[in-house]
């Protein structure tokens, strides 16, 4: 466990808040994490000291803001080990990143009857953008099933990969169960048939080291707000030649080279995909969040969270009638469960009264719930600022609540 967790918690003012008169226990980190003072101060600093539209002005402030935004891009590049900083496109988040790839990739490379391969454990944001394109271009969406323990059926995956498959788009870590997919093997198998792979890293990048060149993924997407950064900023990583091959997504300022009413030529990467004024304040704060994580250390974060997950799992299993969804050696940060037949809404409502924030429901992954034959689960998800004492509070609260339904 992290030795200095008290010191870390002091960086997150919200963790000292009370809810319904009780100290807040925040276990909804897979939905969004809290922000350290350093990140919030970075936002303020940008607005107070060098706010100015980037890439346009010759004046001093514009140059400072531009440099800060472009340095943030470099921070992201180094963080995920990308070969070039122009392979980093700033978006509004994971959802927009996937929509961008779905719209442009399918437009360029897919024709009627082609297939996009996703898995049964995807978040809605890695389902619906493909369905929209599938409807528009008469494509087929194929789904890799998973086993009862939540693990991906790799044999089925091998069978589903075919000459018709144009792209594999898959979660690195499933948001509803915490299952970590064997992403490297998934990518290798696809590449053996020259099929590119998009990795939805929204639930992995915040928790452990991810290196795009090591994985050799073609696209990788994630959100700032799930990794201690601000809302409204996310990342699309794409290999240079693939990004170059794609048509622009949105049109506007910034993404152009020359515009006449007859013909417009487009700017180079990454600006081709950043139409309009980008969120150059959020990007800078995202870079600060990355530095904050790096300061703690990605390996230390992983170890702390893994221990917490193991401890919570073990403690939860001491309760009667607990069912855990996603039981595997390969998990990260998420504990999804039900107790007896108690509806997740009921448990969640009562936990809230005790100051404990966990997510209830389908977690934007309704097909996963259908697969398990349940309406939803309780999901506790962890961050490096969580403690074993907080897990104890959760278990104690659950024990008190379960009696009410007896």
């Amino acid at each position, binding site marked *: 466990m992290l030795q200095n967790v008290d010191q870390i918690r002091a960086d997150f003012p919200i963790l000292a808040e009370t809810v*319904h008169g009780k100290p807040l226990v925040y276990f909804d980190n897979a939905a969004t994490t809290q922000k350290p003072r350093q990140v919030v101060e970075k936002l303020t600093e940008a607005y107070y000291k060098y706010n100015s539209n980037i890439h346009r002005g010759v004046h001093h402030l514009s140059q400072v803001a531009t440099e800060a935004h472009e340095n943030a891009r470099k921070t992201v590049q180094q963080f995920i080990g990308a070969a070039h900083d122009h392979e980093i496109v700033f978006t509004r988040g994971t959802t927009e990143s996937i929509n961008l790839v779905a719209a442009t990739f399918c437009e360029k490379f897919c024709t009627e009857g082609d297939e996009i391969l996703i898995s049964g454990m995807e978040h809605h944001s890695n389902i619906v953008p493909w369905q929209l394109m599938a409807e528009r271009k008469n494509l087929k969406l194929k789904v890799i099933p998973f086993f009862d323990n939540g693990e991906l059926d790799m044999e089925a995956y091998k069978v589903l990969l075919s000459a018709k498959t144009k792209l594999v788009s898959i979660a690195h870590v499933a948001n509803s169960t915490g299952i970590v997919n064997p992403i490297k093997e998934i990518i290798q198998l696809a590449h053996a048939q020259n099929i590119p792979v998009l990795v939805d890293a929204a639930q992995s990048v915040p928790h452990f080291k991810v290196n795009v060149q090591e994985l050799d993924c073609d696209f990788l997407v994630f959100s700032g707000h799930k990794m201690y950064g601000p809302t409204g900023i996310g990342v699309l990583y794409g290999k240079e030649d693939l990004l170059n091959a794609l048509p622009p997504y949105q049109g506007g300022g910034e993404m152009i080279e020359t515009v006449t009413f007859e013909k417009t030529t487009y700017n180079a990467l990454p600006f081709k995909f950043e139409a309009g004024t980008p969120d150059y304040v959020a990007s800078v704060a995202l870079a600060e969040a990355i530095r904050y994580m790096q300061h703690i250390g990605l390996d230390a974060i992983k170890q702390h969270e893994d221990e917490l997950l193991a401890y919570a799992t073990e403690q939860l299993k001491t309760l009667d009638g607990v069912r855990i969804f996603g039981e595997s050696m390969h998990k990260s940060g998420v504990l999804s469960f039900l107790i007896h037949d*108690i*509806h*997740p*809404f*009921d448990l969640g*409502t*009562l936990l809230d*009264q005790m100051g404990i924030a966990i997510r*209830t*429901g389908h977690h934007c992954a309704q097909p996963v719930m259908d697969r398990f034959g349940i*309406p*939803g689960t309780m999901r506790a998800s962890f961050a490096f600022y969580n403690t074993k004492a907080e897990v104890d509070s959760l278990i104690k609260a659950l024990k*008190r609540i379960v009696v*009410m*339904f007896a």
Partner: protein
Amino acid sequence: MTINEIQDDIIEEFSVFDDWMDKYAYLIDLGNGLPVVDDSIKTEQNLIKGCQSRVWIDASYKDGIVHFDADSDAIIVKGIVALLMKIYNDKAPQEIMNSDLYFAEKIGLSQHLSPTRSNGLLAMIKQIKLYGMAFNAKYGG
């Protein structure tokens, strides 16, 4: 009793609880006590959208009054449904559509009233009033 008289009764009933646990334990009791409804009312059409739990409300009209049958798969929501049934069941369509619901806030359930709140108390009330309006339009006040 009028809708407001029933609401006042409920507010008084809840006023004895000074602990949130007692209040929710009572809601759970109410939920368990909600009359069992026939599965045939649990149709897609009767399902209230926008709830994290599933809620079904069915309504029928006879001799100037509206009768509701309702159920939910979450027990606390069922308790809230039971309160709504107490208030609205067997009332005239016009009284239902013109009602002003203030009990939820008074008994500390207002957190369930915001439109984004997943138990959809607002959605339930809206649906009940819609039934009132529909029967009123069809059979008169």
